[in-house]
């Protein structure tokens, strides 16, 4: 009897927490279809915020920039992160593991501060790396490598090493053994890492905010300036679309590699 009461109380608190997690996002989506400039009361259904959004040149450019940077950043950080993950699994490289893990552990703000100082100084001295899309890309790769490395390393730990030895015994070169044995086994980890890097990059606000400079804009930066100036349902529309994109990516991830989602925690 007491036990039933206790678990009922637990269940209620758990549902309240789920509500706390989801209600805000539901509200954003619902108000993106609301025919009122204020995010206060339901007035009527409209899709005009979406059509306004697709006519907003600045927003579209920013979205294009975000997509471009996210694709490039996820590609580069997947290559570098996979190498790092394999190195960390196979050999003892404490310095590398320090370099890979620290950017993940410290607040993003600190990475942003040190990178903007670095880029501006390099630009003053060498005349290269002016703040803009390219510096955003370099910064994103720097913090995505660690996430990819962790996922790939976790995947390698579950791998049967004797497979590689068997391949080598049967005359495979190290590269063949990698391509034909190791790679297929760790592929889900690599894909999961790439998707993670893509989401991290396309979502990043803090580091981008510091390293973007005056001219370049990404979707989060554009959303930020919209929020700061005036809250309009156009922000709800772009938010809803971004949520949809994330959801699609997650579904793809779970299809491509069912273990990928669990590798993230």
């Amino acid at each position, binding site marked *: 009897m007491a036990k039933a009461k206790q678990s009922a109380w637990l269940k209620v608190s758990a549902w309240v927490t789920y509500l706390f997690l989801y209600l805000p996002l539901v509200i954003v989506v619902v108000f993106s279809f609301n025919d009122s400039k204020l995010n206060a009361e339901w007035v009527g259904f409209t899709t005009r915020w979406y059509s306004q959004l697709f006519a907003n040149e600045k927003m579209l450019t920013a979205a294009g920039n975000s997509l471009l940077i996210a694709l490039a950043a996820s590609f580069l950080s997947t290559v570098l992160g996979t190498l790092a993950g394999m190195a960390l699994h196979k050999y003892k490289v404490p310095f*590398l593991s320090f370099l890979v893990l620290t950017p993940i552990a410290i607040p993003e703000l600190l990475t942003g501060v040190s990178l903007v100082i670095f880029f501006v100084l390099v630009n003053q001295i060498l005349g290269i790396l002016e703040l803009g899309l390219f510096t955003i890309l370099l910064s994103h790769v720097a913090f995505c490598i660690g996430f990819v490395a962790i996922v790939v390393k976790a995947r390698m730990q579950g791998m049967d090493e004797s497979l590689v030895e068997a391949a080598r015994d049967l005359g495979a070169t190290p590269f063949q053994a990698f391509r034909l044995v190791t790679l297929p086994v760790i592929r889900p980890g690599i894909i999961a890492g790439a998707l993670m890097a893509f989401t991290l990059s396309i979502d990043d606000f803090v580091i981008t905010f510091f390293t973007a400079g005056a001219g370049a804009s990404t979707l989060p930066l554009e959303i930020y300036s919209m929020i700061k100036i005036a809250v309009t349902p156009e922000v709800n529309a772009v938010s809803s679309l971004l949520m949809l994109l994330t959801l699609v990516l997650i579904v793809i991830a779970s299809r491509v590699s069912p273990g990928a989602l669990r590798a993230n925690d």
Partner: protein
Amino acid sequence: MKNRLGKWLLSWPPLLYLVLFFLIPTAIMFVAAFRFPGDYGGLAPMYYYEEGKLIWDLTLENFTRLVEEPIYFELFAKSAWYAALTTLICLVMAYPLSWLIARSAKKYRDLLLLLVILPFWSNFLIRIYAWMIILGPQSAFTRAVNWVWTGMGGEPVQLLFTPFAVIVGMVYVHLPFMVLPLYANLEKHDLSLLSAAQDLGANAWQRFWRITWPLSLPGVFAGSALVFIPALGMFAIPDILGGTDSIMIGNLIKQQILDTRDWPFGAVLSIMLTAGVLAIAMLGALIARKGVKRG
């Protein structure tokens, strides 16, 4: 020999990249703390030549400024307090949920856990923006709160742009970081301990306080570190949801680096923040190691 080559081939590309775009920038930031600010913001030259002699132009002024004016210490203390409060609320909210997920049927666990992480994958700004709507002056929630509050005889209150909004936003954004390690810990508990305690006459509270809670401490500490560290260095949430009275150390750093462009002082503040984060991380690691030894 071959092993060495493999290690080198795998390690050097990521190593080079991270030295270039993480280690060197961090080192530069540390040095910047000892330099003078430039005339038009940024950094003044580190050295100059006088009569052919090299003279270093470095200072400790940026550090003494930090000590001399109590406002900075107060801001650090306030940020630590906000981060601690956020951590505590996250813990209170996450514990029952993690416990329930860990005790639910195996086939539902992954789904229930996924439902906790899913909002975390939507854009960070969107999650904060959602609270701008909920806490905004015209929202149903604010009106309901004020209806109750004025009914009790109070003056109407503002929710958005207050410390309250900052804490709500920080809890919302960091909650999954608390749930995951807690769940990972609670899931491994040996339930026979609890039934043994029950057979021996322990009530529900005793069973929790004497068995579940002590066993869950590694998860509690891991989750707390994962929430406290990013919360301490937060700048976007106070920037968007907070007012002038709810800024944190992150906002001051952002202001020094991007607006005032007093880089040396911004670097000093960043170093202090780094030191705080490192202290917390080391404390966490120490406690975790002790826990392992005891276990």
